[in-house]
């Protein structure tokens, strides 16, 4: 009134209500009991008082059951608007106090937070982790082109100045490796350290072929089957000691194989004394391949180690030292089909080792090679890889039927004997060479006989891998062909209905280069 007076505004004093002095008794009012309309509790998940009553009727009376039976409190507000009401109704029904009914767990965050606190930092290149090889920095300096292999970045080829097309680089890397010597970073292949009194017996259960009698200092190729008898990974196992193996896997399956082996260790054969741990990252590993690979390695491996063919034959392995005493492991294995070794040092020295190999290899015109040249050479040699171990192929299909030992049990061997997987006309791995040497072989092409109609019914198989072979001067392929083992020399067709092309190919041995393995055993 005084303020209005100051403003010169006249106003009558209204009748002001008088407060009673009666005692106040506040009571909770949780829901309207009268009427037929829905009494909403959770407006996000549309839960009503009636739903809570139904939960109670159905005996879902504990707060956890109430929540899940009705979905009360399960939406984005995690019950902030609905829990109290819901608990109050249930408390009334069960005749308890609200706190006795209990509360459930809230999904965090309890207090709203900005989205940027939780996410949005892994963008672009950082969307998922990148794995880099020990020679990555060196390869970048060489101007390598990289390819993603899972999370890994691997050098795909190393272009030289003047090369404008990848085929120039890859062809050169293949030719030079087979002529003299090439080096490739193969660190990415899984390495699993297997130790224990029962290590060999464990490997006998994991691999289709036998490892029990593998001598110390020897490496053996191994094939792993799934429980249904289909091949799922291949690699090598090197016996460093009676109770110590190093198992290698493909790059893509390293984690899967380790997981499966650990499952087998813990759950399938828990009574075997065997321990596993991954060492993929711990060792930098390089393939050194070609007729001069031994000579190059003799400049790196310390002189007290004899790398001659007699002292270190094909498929041998052992601990050595390099560059004046650094511990290393040497494996005489070959993916390229050339005289080849793989040398491993602790990863921190991998960068130093590639530089030392390149410098020592200058007199041999050493060439670094990437995954493309690696791929061309293994196709030339006829080695199965991921394209052939494609989840549908058995040991028989891969031409490795005899590798599944009948003398011991392993994962998948019983299933692999099912009649459907052993038909006379089963697909078998073969080599395919174009009749017209200028024709390109396309992976994915389907194989038809020389004269049949092109149809699914007439399908004879398909091409799994193809590459231009600079050694042979033409495209070549590996493929799965019905009864392929008995069809060498036959001329068939590789058809590509998608692009409307077809070429004539001759069925040949999958081992295009050095089929007798003379280079391997040099």
């Amino acid at each position, binding site marked *: 009134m005084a303020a209005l007076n100051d403003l010169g505004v006249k106003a009558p004093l209204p009748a002001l209500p008088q407060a009673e002095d009666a005692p106040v008794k506040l009571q909770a009012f949780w829901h309207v009991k009268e009427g037929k309309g829905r009494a909403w509790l959770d407006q996000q998940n549309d839960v009503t008082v009636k739903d809570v009553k139904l939960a109670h009727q159905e005996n879902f009376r504990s707060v956890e059951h109430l929540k899940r039976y009705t979905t009360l409190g399960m939406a984005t507000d995690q019950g902030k608007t609905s829990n109290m009401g819901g608990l109050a109704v249930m408390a009334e029904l069960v005749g308890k106090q609200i706190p006795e009914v209990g509360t459930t767990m809230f999904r965090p965050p309890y207090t709203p937070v900005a989205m*940027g*606190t*939780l996410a949005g*930092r*892994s963008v672009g290149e*950082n969307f*998922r*982790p*990148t*794995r*880099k*090889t020990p020679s*990555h*920095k060196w390869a970048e300096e060489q101007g390598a082109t990289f390819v993603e292999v899972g*999370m*890994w970045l691997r050098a795909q080829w190393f272009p030289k100045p003047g090369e404008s097309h990848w085929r120039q680089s890859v062809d050169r890397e293949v030719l030079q490796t087979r002529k003299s010597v090439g080096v490739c970073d193969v660190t990415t292949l899984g390495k699993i*350290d297997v*130790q*224990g*009194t029962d290590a060999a017996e464990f490997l006998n259960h994991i691999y289709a072929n036998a490892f029990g009698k593998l001598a110390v200092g020897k490496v053996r190729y191994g094939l792993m089957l799934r429980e249904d008898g289909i091949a799922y990974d291949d690699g090598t196992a090197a016996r460093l000691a009676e*109770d*110590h193996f190093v198992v290698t896997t493909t790059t893509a399956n390293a984690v899967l194989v380790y997981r499966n082996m650990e499952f087998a260790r813990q759950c399938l054969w828990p*009574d*075997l*004394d065997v*321990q596993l*741990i*991954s*060492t*993929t*990252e*711990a*060792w*930098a590993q390089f393939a050194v391949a070609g007729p001069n690979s031994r000579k190059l390695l003799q400049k790196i491996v310390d002189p007290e180690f004899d790398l001659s063919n007699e002292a270190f034959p094909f498929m041998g392995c052992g601990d050595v*030292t*390099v*560059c*004046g*005493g*650094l*511990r290393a492991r040497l494996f005489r294995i070959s993916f390229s089909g050339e005289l080849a070794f793989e040398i491993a*040092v*602790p*990863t*921190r*020295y991998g*960068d*130093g*080792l590639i530089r*030392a190999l390149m410098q020592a290899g200058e007199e041999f015109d050493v060439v670094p090679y990437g995954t493309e040249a690696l791929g061309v050479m293994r196709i030339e040699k006829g080695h199965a890889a991921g394209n052939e171990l494609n989840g549908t192929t058995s040991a028989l299909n891969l031409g490795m039927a005899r590798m599944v030992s009948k003398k011991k049990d392993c994962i998948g061997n019983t299933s692999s004997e099912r009649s459907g997987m052993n038909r006379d006309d089963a697909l078998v791995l073969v080599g395919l060479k174009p009749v017209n040497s200028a024709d390109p072989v396309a992976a994915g092409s389907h194989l038809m006989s020389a004269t049949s109609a092109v149809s699914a019914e007439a399908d004879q198989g398909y091409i799994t891998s193809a590459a231009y072979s600079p050694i042979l001067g033409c495209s070549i392929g590996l493929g799965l062909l019905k009864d392929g083992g008995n069809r060498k020399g036959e001329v068939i067709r590789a058809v590509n209905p998608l692009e409307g092309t077809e070429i004539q190919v001759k069925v040949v041995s999958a081992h295009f280069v050095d089929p007798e393995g003379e280079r391997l055993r040099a």
Partner: protein
Amino acid sequence: MHNLKAITPLGGTSPQIDRFEGLVIREVADRALASVAARQGREAECCSAVQATLGLLLPKPAKWSAEGAYMGWWMGVDLWMIDADHADHELLAANVKKAVGLSGSVAEQTDGWCRFDVSGAQVLEVFERLCNLNLRAGEAGDAHRASIEHLGCFVLCLEAGEKYAVVGPRSSAGSLHHALVTAAKSVI
């Protein structure tokens, strides 16, 4: 003495250090690591052998312990990682194997891992962005597994609320480092 030069997991000739207001992220590249898994039926013997020769009592689940030159943390059932200074103990794995003999399986793990020590007043806020570990409720001596930016890591509490070691896969050092630095920038 061999003539090969080592590089750090981040690819440098010396460890990387990133400094922020209230936080330091330090690449640790001078530790030797060896895993030891007790063989069946010889678990007690394996632990005794380690204690007798290295002085180290192998810790219980989710803990690390240290004695003299050696530290060890629990990695799984009957499985531990042993850590020591790289310059003085480069052949740690061979020495641990000599100590346990046939009672344990030992593997060199030194270069399978990268390590970043994260310390400072803001450290807990930064880890809240990185992983779901309840570090506020933890204490020095804790050793947990955690997923940090899709990488399986160990997080060791060196000083509660103040200093933590993150041990992750070496080949992804760049990605892990990026995650730590980005989380730091998000907080600070």
